[in-house]
């Protein structure tokens, strides 16, 4: 591991995993943490508990802002354990000189998103630091949710399951890249940022069995599938032409040399559903406008242990690796 922290250590991919394992897990090791789920299952399996910090540039972008992200991020982590988000804390670190008007806009977004989840903020903290100490504003949210469906775990995926995605992938990452300074890209592309509990709740209410859920944030679908393959000791085989990607995301990937599978999402989740329930899960998801492209993308086998294999429509295959490094555009 490097001697100093680089931006690659926060990429949600290989370097990030290495940092977490070698520094944090090493120190904090315990039975709950080592399960590496989206949220910790505590209190005899009744509650889910999760925390996340949000730093994004620009703060406001098509489809969301840092406030909406801060609520969706933590609530979605709880939802991925089958939990209904209930109580959140909110901690903000603000740079000197930040406009109150922008702060109010961010907080209004948070309020709106909390109501969609039926959750409330019950505690908080505010710090203001000298100009240059942070990039405008950083937000941390921590949440507790009531588990509605027990037993969801990324460690239990087997050949009985199929792999699904809830919608077209990469919209958040591509939107942020398009909005970054220096890109000057005109696009109607919108972040997928949304609260996922309503979709999870519908799946639970319809009686579908769920093995695992994970929202594909930093590192994208590619990171989720690789984590699952390792955690459950399985091979995940994906059919490339079944993965929904919208034309604009594909276009940005083409221009910059990225893969949609590695781009961040903020309202897209990957599901491992028992074979017999997979089609029904797609039907339930597709009743939601944002999930109309939900698709079964692959299956679980034992062909290459702990690996993800991507099959092309012309009959070739390759490994899909965990994304590494800072996402940088290709040179030529």
């Amino acid at each position: 591991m490097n001697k100093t922290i680089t931006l690659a250590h926060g990429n949600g991919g290989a370097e990030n995993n290495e940092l977490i394992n070698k520094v944090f897990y090493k120190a904090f090791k315990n039975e709950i943490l080592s399960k590496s789920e989206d949220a910790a299952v505590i209190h005899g399996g009744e509650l889910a508990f999760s925390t996340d910090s949000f730093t994004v540039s620009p703060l406001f972008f098509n489809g969301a802002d840092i406030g909406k992200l801060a609520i969706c991020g933590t609530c979605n982590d709880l939802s991925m354990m089958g939990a209904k988000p209930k109580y959140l804390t909110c901690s903000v670190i603000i740079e000197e000189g930040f406009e109150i008007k922008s702060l109010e806009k961010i907080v209004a977004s948070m309020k709106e998103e909390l109501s969609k989840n039926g959750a409330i903020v019950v505690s908080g903290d505010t710090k203001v630091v000298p100009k240059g100490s942070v990039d405008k504003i950083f937000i941390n949210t921590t949440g507790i949710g009531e588990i509605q469906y027990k037993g969801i775990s990324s460690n239990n995926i087997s050949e009985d399951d199929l792999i699904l995605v809830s919608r077209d992938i990469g919209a958040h990452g591509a939107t942020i890249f398009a909005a970054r300074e220096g890109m000057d890209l005109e696009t109607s592309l919108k972040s997928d940022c949304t609260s996922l509990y309503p979709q999870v709740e519908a799946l639970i209410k319809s009686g579908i069995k769920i093995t695992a859920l994970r929202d594909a944030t930093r590192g994208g679908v590619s990171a989720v599938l690789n984590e699952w393959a390792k955690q459950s000791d399985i091979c995940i085989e994906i059919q490339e032409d079944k993965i929904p990607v919208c034309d604009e995301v594909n276009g940005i990937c083409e221009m910059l040399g990225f893969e949609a599978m590695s781009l961040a999402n903020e309202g897209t989740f990957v599901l491992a559903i028992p074979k017999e329930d997979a089609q029904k899960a797609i039907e339930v998801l597709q009743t939601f406008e944002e999930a109309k492209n939900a698709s079964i993308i692959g299956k679980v086998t034992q062909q290459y242990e702990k690996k993800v294999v991507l099959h092309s429509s012309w009959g070739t295959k390759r490994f899909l690796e965990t994304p590494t490094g800072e996402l940088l555009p290709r040179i030529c």
Partner: protein
Amino acid sequence: MNNELELKDLYDGFRDAKTIKAYAKIIKEDAKLLDKDIHIMEVCGGHTHTIMKYGIPQLLPSNIKFIHGPGCPVCIMPKERIDNAYVLSMQENVILVTLGDMIKVPGSKASLQDARAKGADVRFVYSPMDCIKIANENPDKRVVFFAIGFETTTPMTAALIQTVIKQDIKNICFHINHVTVPEVMCELIDTTDHNIDAFLGPSHVSVISGSKIYEIFPKEYKIPVVVGGFEPVDVMQSISMIVKQFIEKRCELEIEYKRLVSYDGNKKAQDLMSKYFEKTTFKWRGLGNVKNSGFELKEQFAKYNAKVIYKDVLPTQEKKDHKLCICGDILRGVANPPDCTIFGTACKPTKPVGSCMVSSEGACAAYYKYGNLI
């Protein structure tokens, strides 16, 4: 009706499964008529990337093999030039600007990414023209553009220099590291015990310089060249064209990428390059000095040359590669990434030892990412 051309139209048809499978069938049939194995060198890392990403070797018969060439702007950069970039970035009041992957390449001690973690202002841009905005926003600092790349990116640097001179922008200077393709291909043939039977030429280079730059290979070296695009259908069609040349006993320069490549290329871009740059010897990583394979700013523009401005601080001593790293052999086409003892173990994209593992166009990174095992 909306007649606007969308980005997707530029690649969609060139990834069509039916077409790719049809080419695979044609190549397989034609290859039965070959009397020997055909080794095709794809000169450019962009082609290596496509070949690995789309699993092209899995579609080809066993008597058609690829040799990965030296054409990756990041991989070929010798350590001393990266050390130059590092030192420049650590100078007071300097903003070092470069393109994408260059930030990750390790020099003899550190990379630009490490410099940034130590507080240096290192930025990457999508277009060199973005340097102007950075320079205007930071009038009390000097922007050093660490210019890299083949014929594809050189005209953009030339256009930036032209704008800087025209607008009399005083706080931008240049560290030029541009290289050209044909000279290094000649060097490979002349100095290496090679087994290259044909070249797959990069189309984007010929969009600028025309296909004419490869004429020497069929004429003098008796090695055919097909200038091909980067989509999987382009690559399959190019391979098919090469195979047909062999079974028809032809040795020619052909263009597969006719949608943009002409024999003469882009005259305006060529004029712009020759206005500001002159040919020079460039030390290629793994290959050593290759005469006339690099560009340098002409002397009359010395006041814009970072190598002149910072000559007192820039390191000049030569640096050897890591003793276990075989990037040099890979760039010369005499070894494959899995031949390297540290491939995928001590050398990974997360901690690259050699430059071929850094860049997404690098052969090692392509093998690691897209199927060193399948």
